[in-house]
C-alpha cells in the first residue's frame, strides 16, 4: 500500500553554486502552467490511498507567490490524508513569509525543512545563498510562533577552506535554534554545477571524515539521535517521509524530475519542462524483480544506523538476510554486524559504506 507522496517544485529565485537537482528560475506564469500539469499528473495516477507522509521539495517551494501557493494547496486537496500524517514543506529563509507560513499552516503542513546550509556569510556566498544567520534566526522564530513544532534544518559541510572551527561554529549556531532535526551533507562537487565548472576541489578525505565525526559527536551530545548516515533527529522527530525511502517502501513521486516507486516499478519523471507541460511525464521505468527489491532493501536499509530488521526482512522476502550475497563474509570481516534483531553496518565503516553496499549490486 502506497501511503507517501513526494512533489517536486523545480523553481528557484537564485541558482546555488552546488545544486545539481532539477531546477529553473521562478516565473509566475510558467509556475502556474506547471501546477496545471502537476494537477493532471496527480489526478491520472493517484489511486486514492490514505496518505501518511507528504513532502514538498525543490527547487525552492517557498519561492512560489502566494497565488501559486494557494493553487498548489488546492491541488493537495486531491489527496486523502490519514489522521496520523506528516506533511513537510521546504523553505528558504529569504523568501518564506508570515503570509505563506499561515497558508501552509491552514493547509495542514506540520513540518518545515529550512535550507540553512551554513551560518557563515563567507560560506553562504560560496554556496550562492543570499541570506545570513540573523535572518535564519528571525524566520525560525516566526515559524515557531505560528505553531510549527517539527523543524528540520540542512547543513552543508566540507567546503573548500572550511576548518573544524568553522564547522563547530555552524553546529553551535544550529543548536541555538532549538530545532529537532538536522540533515547534514558533505559538499559534493558535480560537473554540471557552477562549482564543477569552476573546477573546485573537495577537501581531503581525512578532514571530511574528521568533520563527520565532529558533527556526529556534537549532535549526539545535544540530544539528537544519529539515525541515518547523514540525518539526526530528536526522539519522535525522525523524518517519517525519508524513512519510507530507507525502508524501501513505495511512494508516489510527482513533478518535474521526481522519482517514484509504485506497484513494483521505480520510475523517474522527465527533466524537460516542455515534455512535462505537454503531459509526457515519465522518462524511465525500472520493473523490479524480487532480486532487485532485495538489492534496494539492503542499499537503503543499511543507511540506517539501526540497520535492517531481520524478521521484517524475512516477512517481506521469505529469505534469511544473512544467507544472501556475501553477507556472512562481510560479517566475518566485521564490516556488518548481525545481532538477534538487526543487520547493520559497523559504525566504523558507516561513512565508507559504499564499499560494502557495492556487494549487493548485480
Amino acid at each position: 500500500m502506497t501511503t507517501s507522496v513526494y512533489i517536486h517544485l523545480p523553481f528557484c529565485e537564485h541558482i546555488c553554486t552546488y545544486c545539481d537537482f532539477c531546477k529553473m528560475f521562478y516565473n509566475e506564469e510558467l509556475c502556474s502552467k506547471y501546477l496545471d500539469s502537476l494537477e493532471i499528473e496527480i489526478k491520472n495516477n493517484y489511486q486514492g490511498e490514505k496518505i501518511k507522509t507528504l513532502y514538498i521539495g525543490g527547487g525552492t517551494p517557498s519561492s512560489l507567490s502566494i497565488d501559486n501557493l494557494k493553487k498548489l494547496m488546492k491541488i493537495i486537496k486531491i489527496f486523502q490524508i490519514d489522521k496520523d500524517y506528516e506533511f513537510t514543506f521546504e523553505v528558504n529563509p529569504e523568501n518564506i513569509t508570515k503570509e505563506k507560513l499561515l497558508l501552509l499552516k491552514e493547509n495542514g503542513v506540520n513540518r518545515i525543512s529550512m535550507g540553512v546550509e551554513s551560518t557563515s556569510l563567507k560560506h553562504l556566498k560560496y554556496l550562492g545563498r543570499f541570506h545570513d544567520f540573523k535572518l535564519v534566526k528571525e524566520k525560525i522564530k516566526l515559524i515557531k510562533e505560528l505553531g510549527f513544532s517539527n523543524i528540520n534544518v540542512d547543513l552543508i559541510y566540507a567546503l573548500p577552506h572550511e576548518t573544524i572551527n568553522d564547522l563547530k561554529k555552524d553546529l553551535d549556531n544550529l543548536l541555538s535554534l532549538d530545532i529537532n532535526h538536522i540533515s547534514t551533507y558533505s559538499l559534493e562537487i558535480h560537473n554540471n554545477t557552477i562549482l564543477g565548472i569552476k573546477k573546485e576541489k573537495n577537501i581531503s578525505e581525512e578532514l571530511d571524515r574528521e568533520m563527520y565525526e565532529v558533527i556526529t559527536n556534537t549532535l549526539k551530545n545535544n540530544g539528537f539521535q544519529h539515525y541515518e548516515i547523514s540525518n539526526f533527529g530528536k526522539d519522535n522527530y525522525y523524518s517519517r517521509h525519508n524513512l519510507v525511502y530507507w525502508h524501501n517502501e513505495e511512494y508516489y513521486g510527482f513533478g518535474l524530475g521526481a522519482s517514484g516507486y509504485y506497484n513494483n516499478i521505480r520510475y523517474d519523471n522527465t527533466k524537460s519542462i516542455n515534455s512535462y507541460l505537454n503531459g509526457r511525464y515519465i522518462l524511465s521505468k525500472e520493473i523490479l524483480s524480487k532480486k532487485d527489491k532485495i538489492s534496494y532493501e539492503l542499499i537503503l536499509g543499511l543507511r540506517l544506523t539501526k540497520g535492517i530488521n531481520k524478521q521484517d526482512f524475512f516477512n517481506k522476502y521469505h529469505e534469511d538476510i544473512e544467507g544472501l550475497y556475501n553477507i556472512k563474509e562481510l560479517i566475518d570481516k566485521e564490516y556488518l554486524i548481525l545481532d538477534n534483531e538487526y543487520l547493520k553496518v559497523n559504525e566504523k565503516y558507516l561513512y565508507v559504506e559504499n564499499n560494502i553496499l557495492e556487494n549487493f549490486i548485480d
Partner: protein
Amino acid sequence: MIKQENIRNFSIIAHIDHGKSTLADRILEITNAVSLHDSKNQMLDSMDIERERGITIKLNAVELNYHYNNEDYILNLIDTPGHVDFSYEVSRSLAATEGAILVVDAAQGIEAQTLANLFLALDNNLKIIPVINKIDLPNADVDKVTKELVDTFGFNEDEIILTSAKNGVGIQELVEAIIERIPSPKGSINNPTQGLIFDSLYDSYKGAIIMLRLMNGEIKAGDKIKLMSTNAIYDVTEVGVYTPNIKKKDKLVCGETGYLWGSIKSVSDVQVGDTVTVIGKEATSMLPGYKPMKQVVFAGIYPTETNKYNELRDALEKLKLNDASLSFEPETSHALGFGFRCGFLGLLHMEIVEERVMREFKIDLIATSPSVIYDVKLTNGENIMIDSPQKMPDRVNIASISEPYIKTNIFTPSEYIGSIMELCQNKRGNYLNLEYIDSKRVIIHYELPLSEIVYDFFDKLKSSTKGYASFDYELIGYKENDLVKMDILLNGEIIDALSTIVHKDFAYQRGKVVVENLKKLIPRQMFVVPVQAAIGSKIIARADIKALRKDVLAKCYGGDVSRKKKLLEKQKEGKKRMKNLGSVVVPQEAFLTVLSNEEISDN
C-alpha cells in the same frame, strides 16, 4: 600466359606515417586494381587495429596489370610490416622481390625504421627506387631530403621520383620506373619447384593459406607439396592471386607471386621463410635465409574474471590460427589464478594480441609485466632458461644469471645526442659508437639489456627528442649480470605476479619507485595496506596506502534512489577492471608499473 620477363615483384619500404599505404592505394588505382570510387582508403591494411595504429602487421600481396610500350606487365606488390618487432617477416617478403620503392617523407626525411629496412633490402640485392613523398606538404623540403638520399645512400639526384600520393602526383612515373628499373625474375619454370613462403593467413573454411613467391618451377591444384623445414606433405586444393580480390589460377609459375591452400589446418604449421616444393619435381635444397620463429618477450595473461579461463584459451587458440608468432602455455599464479604465459615477437606484438583478445573476444585481461628469457646457471652446473620471474629458482641455487642484450640503431638529429645517451645510461646501456650520417644526423649505437627496453624505452626516446628520434634493434646475445628477483608484498603477502628481475645496483632505487607508484595506483581500501618491496627476506622499500575515510554519499534527495544505485553500479564496474589480490583490490596498471623506474605524478 604472361612472359617471365614481363613480371615485376616489388615492395615498399617506408617509416610509419610516411605514406606507404596511401601510395600503395594510388598504385592500385592507376593499375585499375580498384576504382577510385569503391576504394576504401588504404586497401592493404585489413585489420581494424592496423588501421587505427597506422601500421601494417600482416603482409599481403597484390597482382597488378599495366600496359606499357605495347607490352602487358604483371606487377606484384608485396606489402611489408612497418615495425621492428616484425623485421624477420620484412626480410622474407623483401626476399620475395627483385626491387623495392624507398619512400621518404618530404618533411621528415630518413628515419631509423627506413634505414633498417633499406639495409635488409640491400642485403637481398634489391634494386631500390627512391621516392620523396608528400611533396604537397607546406613544410616539405625536397632539396634537403634529396641531399640526404644522395649523401647517405649514394643515389643520383635524377633517380629520385617526387610524389604526392595524396594528390596522385608522380604515380604514373613511379609505376613505369618499376617496369624500367626493377629486373624481371630469374629462375626457370623447368627447374625443380622452389616457392618462398613470406606470409600465411587463416581462413575458417580453407584453413591456412600460404602466400608465396615461385623462385623456380611451378605449382598447380592437385599437386602434393612438401614444406622443406618440417618435411610435412600436404595436398594443394587451389592456387591463385589477389587482385586484391581472389583470382583463382590453374597454376603459379616461376617468377609469380600468389597464394595456395589445401590440407594445411593451421598457420602454425607454416613457417615464414620456409621453402615449398612439389613432390615429383622436388628441390634438393631450401632457399636461403630461413630462421625459425623466436619469441623474445613473455608475459602472463589472466582473465579478470577467473571463470573466463576457458574462453581465454579458446581466444588464444583462435588468434594463433592466423598468428604463427604467438605462443602460449598454461600458467598459474597465486595472485591471479589460472592464465597463460604468452610469448611475443616484441612489445607491440604483445599489445596487439592483448587488444585483440579484449576487443574481438570481449574478455577483460590482466597482463603481468613483460619479461625476457633469462639464462640461469645453477650451482649444480645445470643451465635453465627462465621466461618469468615467478619461475626463478631459490637464490642459493643460482650461480649466475645472464640476460639478453640488444644493439640499438637510434637515428636522431645531433642536438639530441646528449639526452639519448642519458636515457641509455639510465637503462644500463653500454655505449658503442656514433655514426654521422650527415652534419646534422647521427646513428647512435648502444648495447642495452632487452629487459630495459620492453617497458617504456620507446616512449621515453620519443619524449626526450620531441619525437624526432627513431629506433630499431637487433638481438646480440646474452651477458651475465648481477641480477636479483624483487618481490612485492601487499598487506604482508607476496604477490607473485608483481615480481620482477632487477639489477642489484638498481634494486633499492627501483623498489622505492615501485612501492610509491603502487601506493598512488591502488585505491584506498577499507584498511591500511602496507606495500613493500623485498629481495629474498629483506624489505628494501615500504609505503602505506591509507585506509578509505570517506565515500561519496549521494543524497537520495526526493527519493531519487536509482541514482544511488547507479553510482554503486559505476563503482562496481570500475572495480571489474581490477583484481582481488588476497584482500587488496589492484588495478590493471599496477602490473605494468613495476617495470617503471620513474615516479608517476599525482594526477
